[in-house]
Every structure is written in structure tokens, then in C-alpha cells.
């Protein structure tokens, strides 16, 4: 079956109808090509987006105070909820499964700029009162010095860690900021470190324009008393962020006498939910890609099947003659099946290679650091798995025509003049 003669026959028949063979092959080629390209770009989009969340903990919970909407225990609705150090201590004590815990304060309103200066240089930056754990919740890369530590917080040290945008504005390029003084709203702080954001895009830029000072120092220096703006928390490996979120809310609700059904008193955000939503979205995209890709391929295979039917019909006389000369049904079937499989295989694998090549080119053009897109690529196992299934498809697309070929009556075939 796999001798040279059989292959010669296949090549000969394909050559006899170059245009038709090419067009048929084009269908399969296109299907495979599109499948690879779509898989690649789906993957690129997914990795790009995930990198956009970049290192940003996927199990982070943020909890802040809002106004209540239900009366409870003698309190009127519309009461504003504010947190303090006692709340922070209680949450840390009572909630299980917390890995990193960081009560935070921000100077001024949310994302509001402040007057920061060093000598003649000034700038508007976001100033945060933070715990040492914060660097694990919003990952950063230290460029100079270090981040805040527990002693800074315990001793109310007037120290600051600055983002690289802050560094660029207040310092000369190459200058070591560690040990230098800056003023925030007129209060002097010593810089102990500078960092680069580990996140790309807007979020990274915002982080780069931030100054972190010890949480305790913040409360004291800016007259915040024992107020806590909000909490940033991550669950540990065993606890889901959703569980932690619910537990923290319960503790705070209890402490602040908020109605259990009040959805308004406590505001919270849970990155796990977003992450899940996004995972689902990409799962959906992948499903769609496979659906469209395989449907396109299937159309190509139907084309192969059709063409093989035509080929068999055209070669009725030839097949009849071969039978008269002693061709067994098996040899006729294998000729048709092999031709369908070879045609599909060549076209499909060309599409596969073509698709992968295009992805490679796009990869090089995009480069590894594109903010919105990862480099598109397809898992080779997936690619060649698809190729193998395609070959099977080619084989099956030949079955019906092969059946037709075998049913040709030698007598009728030779007489059909």
C-alpha cells in the first residue's frame, strides 16, 4: 500500500488537475491557518491582559467605608462608616486565612495630588501611609534602598519610599536618593528607597508616582489620629479571597453595628472575582476560537470529500479497468483514502506551518514588552494534535468517495463510452 507506485499514482492524479487540487487544498489550508492564527492571538490577548494585571495579586481584597442604607440598632441610615486602628487590630486578630494585611491611608482625597518638594524641585504626588506588607500586595521592584519595615512603623520614623516618577522629578538622573530629605505638605521625610512598578500601563504609572510613608507616621504627621482609610488584604494559599472578604466584612459590620443585609455600609472589591470573570471570558474566547476554527476546517474537509467524489466519478472507467486487470477492492479503497489523506495532510500542515510562521513574525514585530498584547504563540502539542486530528478528518472525508469507488461495477464502467 505504501510502495513507491502508490505514491506516484497519487502525485500523478493530483497533477492532472492542478487548479482543482490547489483550490481544494486551499480550503483545508485556510482552516488550519486560521485556527493557528486565532489560537495564537487569543493566547496573546489573554497573556497581555493577564500581564496588565501584572503581578497585581489575584486574591487581593480592598475594604473601605461608605454610608449605611438601612437603620440598625437605633442608628439612622446614611451614617458614614470610618475605620480606626482598633478595627485593624480586630480584623487581623479575628479573620483566618490572611496572608498580607495592610491598613492604608491616603493624603487628601482618593488619587489626589499633594505638594511634595525637595529644594527648588516640587511635584504633585500621591502620598500613602502604608504597612510593610503593601509591597507584596502591589508588587514593586526596588531600585535604591529598601521598602518600609516594621521598625519604621513601630518607631514612627519619618521616612519615605518613592516611586521612580517621583525620583525623576525630585532627583537628578543617577543621583542616590537614599538619605536625602524631601518635604510632604511641609513635613520633612528622609528617603530610604525608590522603586519601579512591576505593573505595566496606567496602573504602573500611577504606582510610580506614589510615595509610601509608614502608616503610623502618616497618622501622626498629618493629623489622622487613629483613622484608617481602607484595608488591603490578601488571602493565604488555603483561603479564597472571597472567603476572606466575607469574613472581614462580618467582623467590621459587627463592630460598626451595620445591618447584616445592608450592602452599602461597607465597600469592598475582590480581585479574585475579576480574575475569575476574566478567566471565564478567555475560556469563552478559546471555545469560540476552537469552534470557528474547527468549523472552518470541517468545511475544508467537506470540500475534500466532494472533490474526491468528483475524482472517483471522473475515474470511473479507470477504476473499472483496474478492477478488470486484477485490482482488489482494497487497493481501490486505499488509493482514494490515501489521496484524500495526503491532500488534506499537505494542505493542513502547510496551513499549520504558515500560521505558526505568521505568529512568529508577529511575535518579533510586537516584541516581548508590548503593553497590551503578549507574543502570540501556540502550544506545539496543541498544534500537532490538531494536525493529527486533521489527518484523521482527511481519512474520513475519503471514506464516502472510496465507498463509491468500490461500488463501481466494472462492466458498467468499461461500457460507459
Amino acid at each position, binding site marked *: 500500500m505504501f510502495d*513507491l*507506485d502508490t505514491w506516484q499514482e497519487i502525485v*500523478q*492524479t493530483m497533477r*492532472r488537475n492542478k487548479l482543482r487540487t490547489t483550490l481544494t487544498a486551499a480550503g483545508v489550508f485556510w482552516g488550519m491557518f486560521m485556527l493557528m492564527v486565532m489560537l495564537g492571538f487569543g493566547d496573546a490577548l489573554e497573556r497581555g491582559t493577564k500581564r496588565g494585571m501584572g503581578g497585581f495579586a489575584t486574591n487581593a481584597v480592598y475594604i473601605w467605608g461608605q454610608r449605611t442604607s438601612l437603620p440598625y440598632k437605633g442608628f439612622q441610615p446614611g451614617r458614614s462608616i470610618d475605620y480606626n486602628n482598633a478595627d485593624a487590630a480586630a480584623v487581623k486578630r479575628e479573620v483566618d486565612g490572611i496572608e498580607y494585611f495592610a491598613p492604608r491611608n491616603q493624603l487628601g482625597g482618593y488619587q489626589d495630588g499633594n505638594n511634595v518638594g525637595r529644594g527648588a524641585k516640587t511635584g504633585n504626588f500621591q502620598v500613602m501611609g502604608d504597612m510593610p506588607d503593601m509591597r507584596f500586595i502591589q508588587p514593586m521592584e526596588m531600585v535604591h534602598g529598601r521598602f518600609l519595615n516594621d521598625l519604621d512603623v513601630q518607631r514612627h520614623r519619618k521616612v519615605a519610599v518613592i516611586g521612580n516618577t517621583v525620583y525623576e522629578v525630585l532627583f537628578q538622573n543617577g543621583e542616590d536618593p537614599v538619605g536625602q530629605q524631601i518635604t510632604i505638605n511641609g513635613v520633612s521625610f528622609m528617603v530610604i528607597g525608590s522603586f519601579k512598578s512591576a505593573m505595566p500601563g496606567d496602573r504602573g504609572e500611577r504606582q510610580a508616582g506614589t510615595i509610601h510613608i509608614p502608616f503610623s507616621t502618616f497618622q501622626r504627621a498629618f493629623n489622622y489620629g487613629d483613622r484608617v482609610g481602607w484595608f488591603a488584604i490578601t488571602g493565604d494559599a488555603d483561603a479564597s479571597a472571597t472567603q476572606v472578604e466575607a469574613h472581614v466584612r462580618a467582623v467590621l459590620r459587627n463592630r460598626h453595628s451595620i445591618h447584616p443585609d445592608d450592602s452599602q455600609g461597607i465597600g469592598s472589591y475582590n480581585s479574585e472575582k475579576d480574575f475569575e470573570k476574566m478567566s471565564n471570558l478567555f475560556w469563552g474566547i478559546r471555545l469560540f476560537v476552537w469552534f470557528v476554527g474547527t468549523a472552518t476546517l470541517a468545511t475544508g474537509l467537506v470540500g475534500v470529500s466532494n472533490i474526491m467524489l468528483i475524482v472517483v466519478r471522473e475515474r470511473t*472507467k*479507470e477504476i473499472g*479497468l*483496474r*478492477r*478488470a*486487470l*486484477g*485490482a*482488489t*477492492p*482494497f*487497493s481501490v479503497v486505499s488509493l482514494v483514502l490515501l489521496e484524500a489523506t495526503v491532500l488534506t495532510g499537505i494542505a493542513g500542515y502547510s496551513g499549520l506551518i504558515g500560521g505558526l510562521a505568521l505568529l512568529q513574525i508577529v511575535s518579533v514585530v510586537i516584541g516581548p514588552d508590548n503593553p497590551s498584547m503578549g507574543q502570540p504563540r501556540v502550544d506545539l502539542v496543541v498544534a500537532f494534535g490538531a494536525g493529527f486530528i486533521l489527518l484523521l478528518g482527511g481519512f474520513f472525508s475519503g471514506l464516502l468517495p472510496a465507498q463509491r469507488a*468500490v461500488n463501481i*461495477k*466494472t*462492466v458498467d464502467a*468499461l*461500457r460507459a*463510452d
Partner: protein
Amino acid sequence: MIRLENINKFYQVGGKPLHVLKELSLTIETGEYVSIMGSSGSGKSTLLNILGILDDYDSGNYHLGGTLIRDLSETQAAQYRNAYIGFVFQSFHLLPFKNAIENVALPLYYRGISRKERNVTAMDFLDRVGLADRAHHLPSELSGGQKQRLAIARALISEPRIILADEPTGALDTTTSDEVMQVIEAVNASGITVIVVTHEQDIADRTSRIITLRDGAMAVDG
């Protein structure tokens, strides 16, 4: 060599059975040179198909070289055809995309003989029909007579016991016909049974026995 006993054959034509061969009995000995004549519709093509194991029959017995040919699987039929019978057709039925030597060698391909051996044998048979110098020509580059001689070489290469020729000269002019018939007669002289289906009296006259069919039954035998 060939023994037909009470062969009946029906075709379904428009839902109605058409009785094509009626109780046909016939014996052909080894080495005979026989022609089958008959007007169109007399059943001569059908008879040829049954003899060539290209078609089956509805009742009766067909013995070929002592073997009962009945209810064969397609694969068995293919093997018998390959081993016993060489076909020559009116319209040659050469594969247009294969050259002369490949066309001649085709039956040996189905016998599983290696390409090298096939080609040596095919060359020998091409030489016998005087086409050795055309070995690498495509059928389209050959004349009608050459094509038919090529087809005869193809029929002979499997060293069959019987040559079945269906209007072998039907597509040829008189001179070429004579040429082809001479080749066929030489084949017969070598001891192979030859059965020629024809409607040309002068072709039939060259054979040693003329069987005439009329309406699916034997009309004249002699």
C-alpha cells in the same frame, strides 16, 4: 477450459426484469479460437462479462479451468481475473497518464511484483507486439493500431489462459484491423484460448468457431 451450463441472467430495466441470457450452455476447449456474434441486444456483451468474471449470473454453472465461478467475493474475482483472463477492449482503455511500459505492467502491479521485474517483463511483451521502441510514449502519442497492440501486450503479460477481446477492431481501419488480428492469432497459436466478440463477419470468419447469439440464446454454433 470454459463450461457454461444453463446460464440465466436478468437485468433490472425500469423495475422490470429483462431476461438477457436464457438457459445458455456452452463449452470452449483449451486453445480454441472462437468468435461470438450477434446483433446488439443479443446478450453477447453480457456473456463476455460473465466469462470475464466482471459480472455474475443468476442461475446455472460456470466452470473456468475446473473451478466453479460463483458467489465470489470481489477480491477473489479480482484474483481470478488477474490469473486467468486477459482483456482486450474496443476502446483500448489505456491509462492516459501512464506510458506504454507502465500500462503493460499494470496487471503485474496488482500481482505484487516489484517494479524492476515488472518493467523487464513488460519490455519483453512490448517487444512481442512490436512496440519496444514506443516503451516510454504515452498512449496519446500512439496510433490506434499501436494502442490496441499495447492493450494486447497488457492482456498477455499476466500469462492468462484466456484472452477475451470485445470488438478489438471496432475502432480500427481495415489495414490496422488485420494487423491487430494477426497479433491475436499469434497469441492463439501459442496455445491461449481466444474469444472475440464482434459484429464484423470478416473478423468472425478468421476464427475457427463462430457462436451466434440471438435474444440471449444460442442460435448458431459452428
